[in-house]
Each structure stands twice: as structure tokens, then as C-alpha cells.
């Protein structure tokens, strides 16, 4: 709780910028990583309550398609991003009212079902979504300024970083608030919450909608970085990735999702190219290894390392 996150955060940001200067194509990788990190931050909120969603790619896709659909009418990042968040939040409320009635297996699987339904709708409603071809997004302006590719990419990286830091801090405050502290209570003694006059369902719904909005924001950033959206964004493998990153990063601190996402994306660039048909298999095997042998993830390993050196705050 009281662990000081300033130093690792500053170091992390410096490292991201340094590497992006050395290898310019990394800007793209890091922006995507941070966008996914935001979605994973949402997954983390749910994991705190002991719940895992196998369908949060749904909200990433809602955010991304919102950008793709509205780009022709509203051409600025500062309009598109809030719209993506709003759309994901709205869907999150509707789906959330239903899925927060359930826990554990039902919660996880119902989310998977909703995301797969959305995936097949994106695929089948060709007239609107162009099916598997996807929609190309024209590069939007940022605060009214149309940028060339390179400055645009730098700006997007900075924007993603700012959002990651800001929302990471907000998530930290949220997790320390009564509402955030009630999440682990859902995991351990839900009935007791009810006997305290608190609706566990409402607590979970608040977190669920927050997680949907974070994923929608991530999806919006992804659409504006890749400049192309396809139904694959909603596919189960993508949801699986988000859960994977959450477990990889570890649920211990709000830095975990971003640490996990950056490592994940860096490895993916090489591994997914080298073994396109075995990528999920590698992820699955690593996931098993983490769950069975290192349940606190990368952040846990970091904590153990620094604790040994006595760097406790």
C-alpha cells in the first residue's frame, strides 16, 4: 500500500522515451502497449473483486469502432477519445447491469459470450462495419492541429503516457477509497457487505463500468494509433491477452498492468512473427506457469527483488 511508486514510474517513462528515440518504430509499440495497459487497469479493478472477465475486448472494440465511425464527422482526438469512453461506458452499464448479478464462472463466461456476439455482429453487418476488412481511420487532428506522421506518433505516445499516469493515480486513489476497499470484500465475504447495508452488486457495477470505460479509452487510442479497426479487436484471443497481461503484470499495484503490457508487446513483436501459429500456445503456457508458480506476476518479482535490497519506502 504505502510503497512509493514515483521512482519506478519516472524510470519507466524515461526508459520508454529513451528507447523510442533510439528505435523510432518503438513509439508505435509503446503507444499500443500503454493503450492495452489502460484496458488491463480495468481488468485489475475486477480482479480485485475476485472476478475475471473473458470478454473485455468487447469494450476495446466499442471504443475503437466509435472512433472509426465518428472520425468522418468529428475529426479531433479531443472529441473522439471522450466519445469512445462514453460509448464503452454506456455499453458497460447495459451489460454490467446484467453480468454483475453473477460471480465467478458466470461472470467470466457471460462476458465472453457478450464479446463473441459483438464480434460476430461486427463481422456480419458488413454494410456498416465492412466485415473482416475493417475500417480505415483517417489520422485525426489533435486540438485542431493536423500533424504529420512522426509528430503525430510522438504526440500520441505522450498522450497515452499522460493518460496512463493520470488514470493510474486515479485508480490508486479509487482502490484506497471505501469503494475500492470493498472490492476484495466481495471476493471474501460478500454477504457481510450486504449486512453492512452495502449493495455488493452496486459496488461491482461501479468497478465494471469504470473498467469498461478504461478499455474503451484503450480501444480509442488503439484505433487512432493503428488507424485501422477490425472485428478481431473484439475476438476472444484479444480478451485473453488482456487477462494474460493482468496476470503477467500482477495485481499488486497499478503499475503492474503497464509493466505487463510493455513487456508483452515487446515480446509479441518478435515472437508472434516468429511463431504465428503458436503464439496463443506460448501465452497459455506462460499463463499456466505464472498461475501455478509465481502468482504475483512481474510486479511481484520486482517487489521481491527490491525488498531484498531493502528499498522499502
Amino acid at each position: 500500500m504505502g510503497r512509493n511508486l514515483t521512482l519506478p514510474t519516472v524510470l519507466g517513462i524515461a526508459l520508454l522515451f529513451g528507447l523510442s528515440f533510439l528505435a523510432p518504430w518503438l513509439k508505435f509499440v509503446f503507444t499500443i502497449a500503454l493503450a492495452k495497459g489502460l484496458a488491463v487497469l480495468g481488468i485489475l479493478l475486477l480482479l480485485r473483486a475476485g472476478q475475471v472477465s473473458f470478454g473485455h475486448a468487447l469494450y476495446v472494440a466499442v471504443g475503437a469502432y466509435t472512433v472509426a465511425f465518428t472520425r468522418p464527422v468529428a475529426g479531433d482526438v479531443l472529441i473522439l477519445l471522450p466519445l469512445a469512453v462514453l460509448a464503452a461506458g454506456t455499453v458497460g452499464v447495459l451489460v454490467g447491469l446484467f453480468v454483475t448479478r453473477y460471480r465467478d464462472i458466470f461472470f467470466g463466461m457471460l462476458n465472453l459470450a457478450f464479446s463473441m456476439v459483438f464480434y460476430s455482429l461486427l463481422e456480419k453487418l458488413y454494410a456498416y462495419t465492412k466485415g473482416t476488412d475493417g475500417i480505415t481511420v483517417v489520422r485525426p487532428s489533435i486540438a485542431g492541429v493536423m500533424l504529420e506522421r512522426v509528430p503525430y506518433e510522438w504526440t500520441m505516445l505522450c498522450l497515452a503516457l499522460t493518460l496512463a499516469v493520470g488514470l493510474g493515480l486515479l485508480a490508486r486513489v479509487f482502490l484506497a477509497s471505501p469503494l475500492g476497499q470493498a472490492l476484495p470484500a466481495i471476493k471474501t465475504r460478500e454477504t457481510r457487505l450486504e449486512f453492512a447495508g452495502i449493495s455488493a452488486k452496486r459496488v461491482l457495477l461501479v468497478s465494471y463500468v469504470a473498467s469498461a470505460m478504461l478499455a474503451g479509452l484503450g480501444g480509442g487510442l488503439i484505433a487512432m494509433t493503428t488507424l485501422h479497426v477490425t472485428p478481431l479487436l473484439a475476438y476472444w484471443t484479444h480478451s485473453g491477452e488482456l487477462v494474460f497481461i493482468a496476470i503477467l503484470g500482477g495485481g499488486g499495484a497499478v503499475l503492474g498492468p503497464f509493466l505487463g503490457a510493455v513487456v508483452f508487446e515487446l515480446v509479441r513483436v518478435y515472437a508472434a512473427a516468429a511463431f504465428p501459429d503458436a503464439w496463443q500456445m506460448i501465452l497459455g503456457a506462460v499463463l499456466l506457469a505464472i498461475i501455478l508458480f509465481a502468482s504475483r506476476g512481474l510486479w511481484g518479482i520486482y517487489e521481491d527483488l527490491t525488498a531484498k535490497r531493502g528499498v522499502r519506502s
Partner: protein
Amino acid sequence: MTLLLLLAVLDGLAYAALVFMVAVGLTLVFGVLRVLNVAHGSFFAIGGYVAATLGGAVATTAAAPWLALPVLLVSAILVGGLLGPVVEKLLLSRIYVKDHVLQLLVTFALFMILEDVQKLIWGVQPIFQDAAVKALGPVEVGDIVYTRYQLFLLPAVAATTLLGLMWFLRRTLTGRVIVAVTQDREAATAMGIDAARVYMLTFTFGTMLAALGGALASPTSSLVPGAGVNMIVLSFAVVATAGLGQIEGAALTALLIGLGRSVAVYFAPEFEVVIPYLIMVAVLLVRPYGLFGSPELRRV
């Protein structure tokens, strides 16, 4: 119009039979082991691939065309008999005492692995082997020429599975033992029942059912990557709509969802995939534990 409807009903019955085979395995494994196996859909797909491969081999060496039929059953027994015990012993037996999120994550990880195993072995091109359908030939239903395989064999296998399971669980000693373990593992163990063995046998049998579903499906539609995920999501919808652990309920729900889906295929093809889940959501809104489920099961 009536012709289309008849066709939709026939398709729906055949499809419901397939979905039931997978769903009943999922619900049986959950009922006994209390683990929802996300990789259950992969067993369905692998059963299909193995059946298509063996079926192809039999069709080319063809001593007799009817041999394509027993091949389906053999494939299911092979897949279930090999994968079931391995997965149960190596993975599941380690996590029975862990919380549900971890159990879900473990079977989800297994699912990720098995999806790529299929790609590595069978590639990503569609595979289709309909020797079994051809072996039985066509049949006329009114003005429609339909396959005997879908009209008779699939529903017959599903019905046999349902009745067989009901008889087995209620009337045989082994069945009673399984039910006893389901209700109270500790009490059953205290009576000298080997719960670990019951778990392994049940899981293996459930795996065979999924693989049989896949094997039976393989001659009617081509196998592509993603078959596994579609089936796990759909069979979960069936199982959730029925109520987790409800075997007879799964049969009825499979019929409902199978028919709903095939009617959509003919009349609103864009929404084919949505219909089963609309049915599920509608049922769960009114009955949160499913049509035949009870509240106690929810938090287990």
C-alpha cells in the same frame, strides 16, 4: 415459406443434438468436479479434426463405406481417452482446492494452448470429410431431400446419450457413487469412495462426449480455427440457460437454442449468432439460475 420452416426445424434438431453432446459433457464435468472447463470446446474441435483425418484415411482405403461411421466413435474414444486423463492428472487435480477465478484461468490457459495445437497439426485451411454422411445416404421428407445422417443418426445418438446418462446416474452403483461425490466429497471419501478416481473418470467421459460431438459434427460442416471457441461459448449458453449441472435441462435447452438458431439462419442470417444468447439473457433475466437451476449452485 413452410418449406423453409421445415428445413429450419430439421436443421435445428440435428444441430441441437450436436450442441447437446457438448453441453452435457460440460455440465456433467461441472456437476462432479465443480470446475467449468473452458477448454471443453477445444476437445470438441480436436474430436472433429481427428475424425476427419481418420475418416479421410478410411475413405481412401475404403474397404466398405459404412466404416466411416464407427470411425467417428473411435475418434471420440481416442481423444477423450488420451487427453482426458492427462489433463485431469496434470492440471485439474492441482486446482480443485483453489478459488474459482484460478480454476477458470487455468482451463482458459489450456484452451489457448489447445487452440494452437490444432493449428499446428491441422493448419488453418478448412477441412471437410463427409464420408459418414454419404455412407448413410439421403432421405425424402415431404419435398425436401435431407441426409439420413442428420435426420436419424444425430438425434438418435443424442437421445441415447441422454437416456443412457439418466439410467447410469440413477440406476447403477457407479452412477450413485458419482452422485454421492457430487453432493459431498468428504462424506463420500469417508465412506471409502475414491473421489480422485471418480473425478478422473468423469472428466475423461466428459471429454469423450465433447470429442464425440465434434466427430459427429465434422461430416456436416467444415472444420476451421475458431470452431472450439464458438462451441464452448454456445454450450455454456445452453448450460447456463438450463442451470449448471442440469442434464435433462441441457437437453431441453439445446433443443430450444438449436431450433432458435436454425430458424434465424433461414430468416435473419445476420442474427444467427445472436439468437442463442438472446434466449439465454431472456431466461436468465427471469430465472437467474437457469430454467432448472437452483440458487445453491450459483455460489459453488
